[in-house]
């Protein structure tokens, strides 16, 4: 906790405890901190939350990873199943990412069909994987025109505290790099794999990922034109827009998006790209350490 600003009055006559004040006037509460250059959780405006990556946490999945970014925890599991290829792409498999924001992770989500946010994040990840050509889908071919692998990449959010975009994409890339699929044999319409206890390079294969795009998100606060790196959920709820920069390991951009809030200058975008470059390097370091 940062040192709390002393004056938590909403009008001269009434004072409240910090938590009450935050509930009643979240924006004012945030500003009291921001005016001193810090955020309510003690971070600087431009700093990110501690992040950890763990690989292979789920043994029932063919590849998995758990990512924690501050209070946000996601688990990504990849399941490889056999499917018929599309008729117009007989030698290509499927790569299907989906993000689940279920009511367990925050009271903001209700049971039932995926919320707009879940759909948008799923689509963002789907597009990055597809457009920046992360995986050649021909690698997933088992028998042309007959059978291909379908990789179901499902991200479950266990605890939601903002910035699901970065956490989810990191977990997806980590899980994909963790994937090991048993080498298949195709015989008369049936795909078989050998039952072995230990997977090695003899009996299984890894995915040949062309690149590892990672995203870095910022929240935009319209009223004061403040940019917040790696926003938590309280900050997201008072922000009007977001900037997401996605880069691969060579520093090449894979996606840039700026949605909501007022127009932002080129200067601001450059600044975001710069910060994102540093942060994605740091994320990569964390990912490599754990592997």
């Amino acid at each position, binding site marked *: 906790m940062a040192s709390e600003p002393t004056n938590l009055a909403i009008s001269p006559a009434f004072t409240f405890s910090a938590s009450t004040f935050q509930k009643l006037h979240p924006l004012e509460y945030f500003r009291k901190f921001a005016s001193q250059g810090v955020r309510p959780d003690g971070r600087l405006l431009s700093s990110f939350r501690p992040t950890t990556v763990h690989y292979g946490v789920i043994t029932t999945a063919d590849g998995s990873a758990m990512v924690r970014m501050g209070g946000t925890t996601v688990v990504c599991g990849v399941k490889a199943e*056999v499917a018929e290829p599309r008729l117009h792409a007989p030698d290509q498999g499927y790569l*299907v990412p989906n993000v689940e924001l*279920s*009511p367990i*992770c925050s009271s903001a989500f209700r049971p039932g069909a995926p919320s707009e946010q879940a759909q948008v994040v799923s689509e963002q990840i789907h597009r990055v994987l597809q457009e920046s050509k992360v995986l050649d889908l021909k690698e997933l071919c088992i028998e042309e025109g007959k059978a291909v692998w379908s990789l*179901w990449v499902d991200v479950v959010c266990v605890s939601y505290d903002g910035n699901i975009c970065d956490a989810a994409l990191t977990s997806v890339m980590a899980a994909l790099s963790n994937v090991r699929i048993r080498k298949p044999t195709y015989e008369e319409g049936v795909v078989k794999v050998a039952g072995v206890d230990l997977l090695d390079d003899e009996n299984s294969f890894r995915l040949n990922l062309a690149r590892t795009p990672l995203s870095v998100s910022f929240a935009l606060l319209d009223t004061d034109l403040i940019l917040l790196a790696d926003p938590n959920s309280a900050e997201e709820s008072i922000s009007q827009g977001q900037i997401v920069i996605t880069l691969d390991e060579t520093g090449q951009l894979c996606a840039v998006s700026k949605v909501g809030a007022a127009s932002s200058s080129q200067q601001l975008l450059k600044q975001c790209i710069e910060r994102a470059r540093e942060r994605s390097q740091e994320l990569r370091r964390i990912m490599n350490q754990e592997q």
Partner: protein
Amino acid sequence: MDRKRVAGPELSVAPLVEYPRDHKRWTPQDEQRHDTKRQPEDMRPIYLKTGLINQANGSAYIELEKTKLACGVYGPRPGKRTGFSGHGVLNCEIKFATFSCAKRRGHMRDPQEKELSQILSQALTPAVRLDLVPKSTIDIFITVLESDGWGSCVAAAITAASVALAHAGIEMLDLVAGCSAAYIPSGPSIASPTPSATDATNATGPSLAPRIFMDADLEEEKYEQGAIVLAYMPSLNEVTHMLQSGKAEGSIVSQSVEHCVEACNKIYAVMHHALVESVGENK
């Protein structure tokens, strides 16, 4: 078709797993359990921690080796508007992650999940002082990240949910510990290499009394002829829920209930520890 998710192929199946002839798999004929380190009465070691989900009022994460699940408790919060009630409502929802089992599960809630949710709410309701939270709902959400045995999964869910409730500061009569046991037919001590050995159900003569395996894993469950899940309040020495399935003699059932009660007392120590640990953390 699901319009609200990224679409994949309409139909996909797990590949057929073919085991080599010399592959050795665990069968009930084996003297030891599937996990050779465990005796029949041993549970897997439990890892239990509170406070994983910071947006929830209370939360717990439990791991019994491969069985892993997270539980979040929200509330008391305004209930669904179905008339005035002096009592609160305990609402449980359990969801298996798509990758949590050997076979991929769907995104939609299936009947098994609905049944489990029902069991959970029956097992926990007697322990919660719902009379103190009129008009309100307490929501318990559980996500199973990995399941290694159905019974152990239910038991772990009960244990975790009860700890999460206590962590949420909700008034309870007692904690509820969950425990499971499976009845595994005991074969001859020397495994006979008959062809029927692969077919577990036929391999056992009816005369032999089954062995009771506490906290059976998935591999053992494949051979079970019955199982029991017990939810128990250790301090008050009361059972809140009991689910016995399959065929077993009365003596076996009462014996396994005894085993489960004993195990629940051990689990209670873990629960106690996890909660007291959280007392220290907040200071």
